[in-house]
């Protein structure tokens, strides 16, 4: 199966590569963070209430910028 992927026709590999790039870009910039949060919450028993997308965004921003996250 792996061999087939590796040697797939370039026309088939390109869309796959673009999808992976798009997914990576969404994760890198933070667009996928809320989906991640929901998925992580779904797999674990959580006592606290679920945050809305807007609440989660504000909470994440507060957490991220409370510690050194940008270097010189």
């Amino acid at each position, binding site marked *: 199966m792996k061999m087939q992927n590796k040697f797939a026709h370039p026309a088939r590999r390109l869309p796959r590569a673009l999808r992976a790039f798009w997914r990576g870009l969404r994760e890198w910039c933070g667009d996928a963070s809320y989906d991640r949060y929901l998925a992580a919450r779904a797999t674990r028993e959580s006592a606290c209430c679920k945050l809305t997308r807007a609440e989660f965004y504000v909470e994440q921003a507060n957490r991220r910028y*409370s510690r*050194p996250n940008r*270097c010189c």
Partner: protein
Amino acid sequence: MKRAFSIVAWIAVAILGAGSLAKIAVHRGEPINAMWFVAAALGCYALAFRFYSAFVAARLLTFDDTRATPAERVDDGRDFVPTNKWVLFGHHFAAIAGPGPLVGPTLAAQFGYLPGTIWLIAGAIFAGCVQDFVILFFSIRRNGKSLGEMAREEVSRRGGFIAQIAVLAIMVILLGVIALVVVNALKSSPWATFTLAMTIPIAMLVGLYLRFLRPGRVMEASLIGVSLIIFAVIAGQWVADSPAWAQAFTISGVALAFALIAYGFAASALPVWLLLAPRDYLSAFIKAGAIFSLAAGILLVRPDILMPPLTKFIDGSGPVFAGKIFPFCFITIACGAISGFHSLISSGTTPKMILRESQSRLIGYGAMLMESFVGVMAMVAACAMTPGVYFAINSPASIVGGTADAAAKTISSWGYSLSAATMNDMAKAVGEITLLNRAGGAPSLAVGMAQIFSSTIGGPRLLSIWYHFAIMFEALFILTVLDAGTRVGRFMIQELAGRLWKPFAQTSWVPGMLISSALIVALWGYFLYQGVIDPLGGINSLWPLFGIANQLLACVALVLATTIMIKMGRIRWLWVTVLPMIWLVTVTMTASYQKIFSANTRIGFLSLAQSLTAQIAAGKIPTAKIADTQRIIFNQRLDAAVTAALALMILVLIVEALVQWYLLLAKKRPATLHESPYVATAWAQNFSGVAHGDD
């Protein structure tokens, strides 16, 4: 067969890297092409990553990929998020690469291209990458603990305290000096000032969009913001062309300093989502775009390097900053070679997101190699311009004179030909009134970048747009470091003050928040102000201070790593962290000594203070300037005291480390490691991070 091919390929890479390095080292006379720099850097990086990082991984760290990382064990969807290694590489690189690798090499270009380039490549391979890599690995093994926490647990409480103070010190000095870089780039430049001022309402607009209109849709909001910023760069030209508007945005250095201080306070006190976070998103996109564009531009244009390999200023008489190659080249270039600040990132967010221990090699060692390459590109951009122009832009008026004629005469007398017309024409071509006396590295880098970009797209017609795009890019992400750093500094002050009076530690307590914000802003604001009024340009005093503080933090990180390795029984390989540590201690202690005690008034803080005091006593200073001169004398003594405090911390840290290492090696103290308990991974071996079914 495959093995034979691999051996041949790596021998070819070794020949390419070593050959290119030898070429730039021994080349004299005719200009050398920038591609030799690219080949030397990439060849050396490839070898270092393939062999040296593998050696460090195998002999010192010994990964265990059956062990669950903090991201797997905790996986709370907030801090601990399993992340694909390439995405995390991007996160980590965006976090570590700030203005330092652009500004430091540009300043160090005054020695010629050779010392800085060799330090960037060798320093990264043997010191910076190793530091980032081992600290990341040790933090993964300790549930993502911070450098300070690890130093307290593994070295001693005193080691942890020094780490905490070093972080605060570096934060204050860093913020002061990078704010000075922005001031020197924007002063008397209506176009650049307008563009940067516009980024504030644009960031707030993006913040409101992300908070209320389309919460959390970072990419689309950032694209809107980036488009508006590019429009602001273009609109800046209309502002510069309109006499009334140009006058409104022509602001002096002191006024700009106070504007930045007010901005820092606002960014620290306002809700994060309104200004700080959206600015960071915009900055990250523009940073990534500009760095890739610079790399592409260098590859396409392949400029000749006009700066000689070594200049006459290796003797310590440099106009940009005073001091000989040793030690000043090695503290001027910190980020790009080794930066202690990186250890805060390596022990902060990244270890909580990594999937496997073995990925710390790509992310810790690899991302730092990439930052080093950014430094090499900055060196290429600075050295691709005529040396005379480089010195005219970066030298203070007190050395080369405040007019184009005076600067041309002085710089030509040094042997670097320059005419006043060249400087006037260049200023006109980039849409500025003057490019003279803009110490700090940002404008000369912008000229270098603009020349490379305009050779690719637009020609001389777009030179002014490219110049202001480059200035905006540098100033934007300097301001991002400024506001994020001010906020973190505010939390550090609240934490320290909270030990004395508990309510202070509550970050939501408004009076505490306002007082600590004002305090951190006042601390770095004072350094900024003294830099702006400094007759020697400010950078001459403050950039070495920043370098010393940054390397102090690197010493903390390397002491921590060495202590853990002793506890792990890796005695035979201790040189991997001890040798860079000895080098850094030697460099920082020598630089500290010279900055405090040198008899040369351009280097020694105390000798300048003494000289100015004598001039006042002899009646050589006009009465109207006595108050200003006394302030400069006070600032020199303050800088000497700060340098002495940093040097003392390094000494205390080394003594502390030696005691702890002796106790451990003599088995008088148990070698207890504070690692998180082993938990076996539940993930399949080829798991790549797409954990939750998002596509």
